[in-house]
């Protein structure tokens, strides 16, 4: 019985395909795979906006939205209707075609990456041989969309925001990719499905997730930080710093196009979180061997929601970084650390299994982490800030 519940979506797809004439089956098969994803993740986006506003409100000691429906859960409906009925303003000097194409490219690229993410056992749209590469390749298109939006608006604020966003995304894409290289080395495959299958076995009750190794934990933390920066979220939200350049590259967008940018940003965050889950947290695999009766997609979405909550928590906790801090952190700390981490994964692979390799790789990572952070701090001294208030 758990088997059937686990595979219920796959089975119902095959059952529905049985009613379709053979000539149309490839088309319908693709549709039946794609449409649920196109529905599920925007729905998750709607849920997340409420969760985020309520959670931030709780952390900042105020009420979140509480006027629409019980506990404000109908807020996304209100937001959606509002953005649909608002006037679509295009600046007169804007480059009209590029201005129109930018949000479309952003949302398209954000949706495309879901093709390789395994949502459950046997539940992936396209099991590509080079799936991880596809994810990063399509993800890099987002940068172009950001540039198009910022440049075509012909506004100083949006151009500044676009430049900041692109500089940040390029800098943090490197540690993001290098952090996932360790998993590719360990799994010996670029296919997301193969990577999850490698992690879906157990020793006793403990799973074989890559996060439970020294290099995996380091890679996971680097990946998570870089993912936060890639999705322009706090503390890396310089490109859209509300207090300086208002909304950054999409300041000149209104109505539904603004909502599309919002959607694209959250879809990007979900996608990188899902990739972190796939690479390090075992994808749809259960955390203990005695919990495998719970369906795989439930585990996937539980992990995804947990990571989203972590992102909201970070946003409610940390202040924004300065531009030079951001760049120094990316190039002088994250990049060397992820390179050392790759070396550590290699050492781990060639040493015999046992306590010794745990010790060696942990020591390598910890020592390099400490020395890199000391190097980052060199030439600066920190002291308690004193404030002088007007008498």
């Amino acid at each position, binding site marked *: 019985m758990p088997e059937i519940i686990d595979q219920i979506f796959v089975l119902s797809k095959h059952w529905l395909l049985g009613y379709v004439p053979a000539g149309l089956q490839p088309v319908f098969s693709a549709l039946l795979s794609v449409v649920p994803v196109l529905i599920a993740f925007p729905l998750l986006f709607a849920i997340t906006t409420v969760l985020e506003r309520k959670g931030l409100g709780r952390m900042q000691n105020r009420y979140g939205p509480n006027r629409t429906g019980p506990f404000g859960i109908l807020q996304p409906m209100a937001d959606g209707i509002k953005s649909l009925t608002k006037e679509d303003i295009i600046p007169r000097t804007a*480059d009209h075609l*590029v201005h129109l194409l930018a949000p479309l490219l952003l949302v398209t690229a954000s949706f495309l990456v879901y093709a390789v993410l395994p949502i459950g056992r046997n539940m992936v749209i396209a099991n*590509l*041989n*080079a799936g991880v*590469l*596809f994810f*990063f*390749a*399509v993800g*890099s*298109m987002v*940068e*172009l969309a950001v*540039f*198009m939006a910022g*440049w075509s608006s012909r506004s100083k604020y949006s*151009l500044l925001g*676009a*430049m900041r966003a*692109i*500089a940040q995304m*390029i800098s943090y*894409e490197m540690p993001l990719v290098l952090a996932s290289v360790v998993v590719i080395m360990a799994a010996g495959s*670029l296919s997301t499905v193969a990577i999850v299958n490698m992690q879906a076995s157990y020793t006793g009750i403990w799973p074989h997730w890559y996060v439970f190794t020294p290099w995996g934990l380091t890679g996971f933390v680097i990946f998570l930080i870089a993912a936060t920066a890639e999705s322009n979220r706090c503390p890396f939200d310089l490109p859209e710093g509300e207090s300086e350049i208002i909304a950054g590259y999409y300041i000149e967008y209104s109505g539904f196009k603004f909502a599309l940018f919002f959607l694209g940003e959250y879809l990007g965050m979900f996608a990188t979180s899902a990739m972190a889950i796939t690479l390090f947290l075992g994808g749809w695999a259960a955390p203990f061997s005695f919990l495998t009766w719970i369906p795989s997609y439930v585990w996937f979405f539980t992990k995804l929601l947990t990571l989203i909550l972590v992102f909201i928590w970070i946003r409610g906790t940390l202040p924004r970084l300065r531009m030079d801090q951001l760049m120094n952190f990316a190039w002088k700390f994250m990049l060397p650390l992820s390179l050392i981490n790759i070396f550590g994964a290699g050492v781990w692979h060639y040493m015999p299994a046992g306590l010794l390799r745990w010790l060696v790789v942990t020591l390598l990572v910890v020592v390099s982490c400490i020395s890199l952070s000391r190097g980052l701090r060199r030439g600066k001294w920190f002291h308690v800030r004193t404030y002088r208030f007007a008498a």
Partner: protein
Amino acid sequence: MTISFLLLAAITIAGTAAAMSLRNLVHCVLALTLGLVGLAALYLQLGAQFVGFTQILVYVGAVAILAVFAIMMTRSAEPTEPHGSSSFQLSGALIAGIVFAVLAWAVSSGTKALQVQTLQPEASVNQIGVALMHGFVLPLEVIGLLLTAALIGAGVLAMDETRGAR
């Protein structure tokens, strides 16, 4: 000659042609990006997943971004006036025609000698990795050295000479 090949070829040619003929520099870069994506799609159609995705990652993710960044940093992206005389265009067209003729001759005479190979997309990434690490280690290392030298050179150029390294 399937429909998808014709479509992708049309997109690639249209993109690159627009990159040469548009007035606005940023539009040129965006059109060039379209052409490069079309090229990547053509690689994918041939079953070369790794090459196709790397093409997108490198050319769309890095080269196009670098180009637009350079444009944003250095000059205003206002439309430029067309310049160049008709004789210049004529000689350009002549050279393009000759190059096309040579390439077409090479391609059409070369096809008969090649055997049609069966594709092995299942192991292609693996094969590329093995080839890079066994047969082509030296070229790989040389390229790595060259890129490192270029990186250091760029760093030296960008360095503020009056105040030394920052």
